[in-house]
């Protein structure tokens, strides 16, 4: 019985690459200050309101898509990295994957609870933005540490 939702192993490397670009773009936002006007384009929106302007639904608006591209790169890269099979994928790896995933979700929400209690105003908004990615990032870190430990595990051959 084969029942899983994993991509083939060949998507792993492109996943890392896309994630890496996304993270670089993300880090750059802290240095460049203003988003480059190169990214100003017209986009179709289903809903855009809340910043004082008139509420807009299902129409074209102008927007700087730097943030959107960054988020898409991190999420797509992160998902490909997270949900691609390992080269030697087997049931033990599947178990490590699953336990790392539940660890990541748990830690993510513990951190979020902490932030809800101790962080306010605009700082909390920043946490919410980071929180969009942290589950995947926590998972990737945990899963790869576990794999590293597994590969390092002393073999007691013979």
């Amino acid at each position, binding site marked *: 019985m084969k029942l899983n939702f994993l991509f083939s192993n060949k998507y792993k490397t492109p996943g890392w690459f896309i994630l890496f670009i996304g993270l670089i773009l993300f880090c750059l936002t802290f240095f460049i200050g203003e988003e480059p006007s190169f990214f100003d384009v017209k986009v179709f929106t289903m809903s855009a309101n809340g910043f004082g302007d008139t509420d807009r639904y299902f129409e074209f608006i102008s927007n700087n898509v730097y943030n959107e591209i960054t988020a898409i790169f991190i999420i797509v890269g992160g998902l490909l990295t997270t949900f691609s099979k390992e080269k*030697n994928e*087997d*049931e*033990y*790896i599947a*178990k490590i994957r699953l336990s790392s995933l539940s660890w990541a979700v748990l830690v993510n929400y513990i951190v979020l609870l902490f932030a809800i209690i101790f962080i306010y105003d605009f700082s909390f908004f920043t946490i919410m933005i980071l929180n969009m990615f942290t589950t995947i990032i926590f998972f990737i870190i945990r899963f790869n540490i576990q794999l590293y430990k*597994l*590969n390092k*595990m002393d*073999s*007691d*051959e*013979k």
Partner: protein
Amino acid sequence: MKNSIKVERAKKNLTQAGLAKSVQVSRQTINAIESGKYNLSTILALKIASVFNVSIDDIFELEEYDWEKN
């Protein structure tokens, strides 16, 4: 769960890597099973028994601990 994979391997003069290859898992997985770090699936247990040409309970044995609630 106790297991005697190591003993069976020795009888057949089979390395962890060799066994891993015949049951289509990684060597680390066999290592984790032998050292009791991982409770394998029924399918894999059947495959291993089949490679050694014995029945499952010749290799795997329940321990008291397995009856305790987690």
